[in-house]
């Protein structure tokens, strides 16, 4: 199973490479770092969603708050069956619904994101609505670490604990780098996990590229009764490509034909 997931992750990374090469450009860094998180949610039976009926009442909700990393998100949605994989070729092309930032015109997308700091507050509302109606649905919100500099994230964190939303899970893609540079140089976040704990969240730190570790935690939520769960997934920005790892130089970029070939080779052959 873990091997299958690793293979899935590799497929998603290859899609990201294609999307960044065959379009005006993509947010490569944050797409590559979030791959295993998406893989575990969609392909390890965590998310209770139905690609054939994306609006099914009572479904789990995934809110992809770091919407700029749409290349990885679309790849996961397509591989999960929300729309044909071939449609990925239309990414950022005229007439396509696959815009640089996701919107609800795309099957499986629950919230139009791209302006950072919106996902968690809306997630709080969705989680409250589910609880109020006695629905089984859980809400998973994926945020960037730089995104956690937004005050709205912490206002929502406070509300989630206050309302004891144990059906709410935030997964932070803690790759340590934002657009202008390392988070700790631009606007320090540490002690980061302690901040979530102090806000009343059941908090764990995991290796965000280890699908086994992610799987264990995600299948266990809520970690504490009547508390929201924060999963700090330690990741590498640009993970998987020698030239994009651990730098903000590939926060956003277009892959030349040469780099595309090199990237696909590094990921284990063309596809």
């Amino acid at each position, binding site marked *: 199973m873990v091997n299958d997931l690793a293979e899935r992750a590799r497929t998603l990374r290859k899609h990201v490479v294609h999307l960044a090469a065959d*379009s*005006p450009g993509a947010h490569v860094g944050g797409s590559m770092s979030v791959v295993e998180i998406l893989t575990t949610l969609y392909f390890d039976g965590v998310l209770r969603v139905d690609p054939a009926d994306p609006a099914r009442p009572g479904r789990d909700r995934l809110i992809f708050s770091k*919407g700029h990393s749409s290349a990885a998100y679309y790849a996961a949605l397509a591989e999960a069956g929300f729309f044909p994989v071939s449609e990925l070729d239309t990414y*950022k*092309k*005229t*007439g*396509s*619904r696959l*815009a*640089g*930032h*996701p*919107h609800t*015109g795309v099957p499986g997308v629950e919230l*139009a*994101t*791209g*302006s*950072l*700091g919106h996902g968690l507050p809306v997630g709080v509302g969705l989680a409250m609505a589910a609880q109020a109606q006695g629905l089984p649905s859980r809400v998973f919100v994926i945020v960037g670490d*730089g*995104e956690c*500099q*937004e*005050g709205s994230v912490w206002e929502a964190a406070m509300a989630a604990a206050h309302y004891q939303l144990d059906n709410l899970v935030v997964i932070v893609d803690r790759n340590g780098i*934002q*657009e*202008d540079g390392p*988070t700790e140089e*631009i*606007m320090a976040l540490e002690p980061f996990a302690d901040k979530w704990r102090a806000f009343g969240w059941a908090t764990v730190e995991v290796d965000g590229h280890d699908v086994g570790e992610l799987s264990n935690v995600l299948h266990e939520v809520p970690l504490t009764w009547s508390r929201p769960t924060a999963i700090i997934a330690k990741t590498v920005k640009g993970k998987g490509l020698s030239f994009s790892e651990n730098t*903000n130089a590939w*926060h956003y970029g277009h892959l030349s034909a040469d780099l595309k070939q090199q990237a696909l080779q590094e990921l284990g052959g063309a596809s």
Partner: protein
Amino acid sequence: MTALADLREGVRFDPATTTAFEACRLAQLDLAREDPRVVSVEADLGDCWGLEFRERMPDRFLDFGIAEASAVGAAAGLAMGGKRPFLNTFGTFALMRAAEQVRLDICYHRAPVVIAGMFTGIAAGFSGPTHHAIEDVSVARALPNLTVIAPADAVQAYDATRAAFAHNAPVYLRLGVEPGPQVYDAHESFEIGRGRVLREGSRLTIVTCGVTIVPEVLKAAERLGDVEVIDMPTIKPIDRELLVRSASRTGRVVTVEEHSTIGGLGSAVAEVLAEHAPVPLRRIGLPDAFVKEIGDYAEQLRRFELDAEGVERQVRAWVS
């Protein structure tokens, strides 16, 4: 045309390939060299043409991270404390994300902050609805004490940035995304509150503003014949006298803008004309809807009939 490189020592850019935002950043750097009070307030978008400032004046490049409310509030505080901040971020993040901070912390206190809004309009054509700023002028215009300026090219953006600084009160600069064709030569381009007649005509007045849009309108006007074109970079306070004079003479006005037709330049012109020179008016701009279609800038302009052909078509349809 005079390259702006000739204008001032230390300024080196080609107006034809430079974005308005880049020109604004260059002006900020020049002003920072001249005035030690100048600081750049950032919200993690410094890599959008701000790196030179960061390199040359690291102590005056103040990044607040992805936290616009904090950055806007801090810009206001810095200004009240004697600094002269430029706030650099996307137009939508400054004016809509942090709208109340702009309203109360900057405008209410008349704190001399220049808000430099990039990625305005629909030029970020592939980014999707979250990244378009098509209501920013509407928001900005409604805020007391805020001067609203949409330059027509890089030269005017450079000059408008210096003028905004000299104004010593809150200013919003609407700077677009892409470089556009040059409209102005150096030195002659800008004064706050003054519109400029770029082309004289007697049958109709077109009032417009903004990067790429002004040159597209000029092209349309060539084909339309005897029409007047006014560049109105200061949307607030608008040049009422010029508007009334032109409208009274031509008897018909069209506005063209890369913004919702609600609350932008068209509305500003309508307000003036309705009270001071009631003539038939047609507002050309973006519909009252989120722009979900994606495409490059040229395609987007074509789709919304804001390119020269589209403007010509819309004007002809209206007057016939």
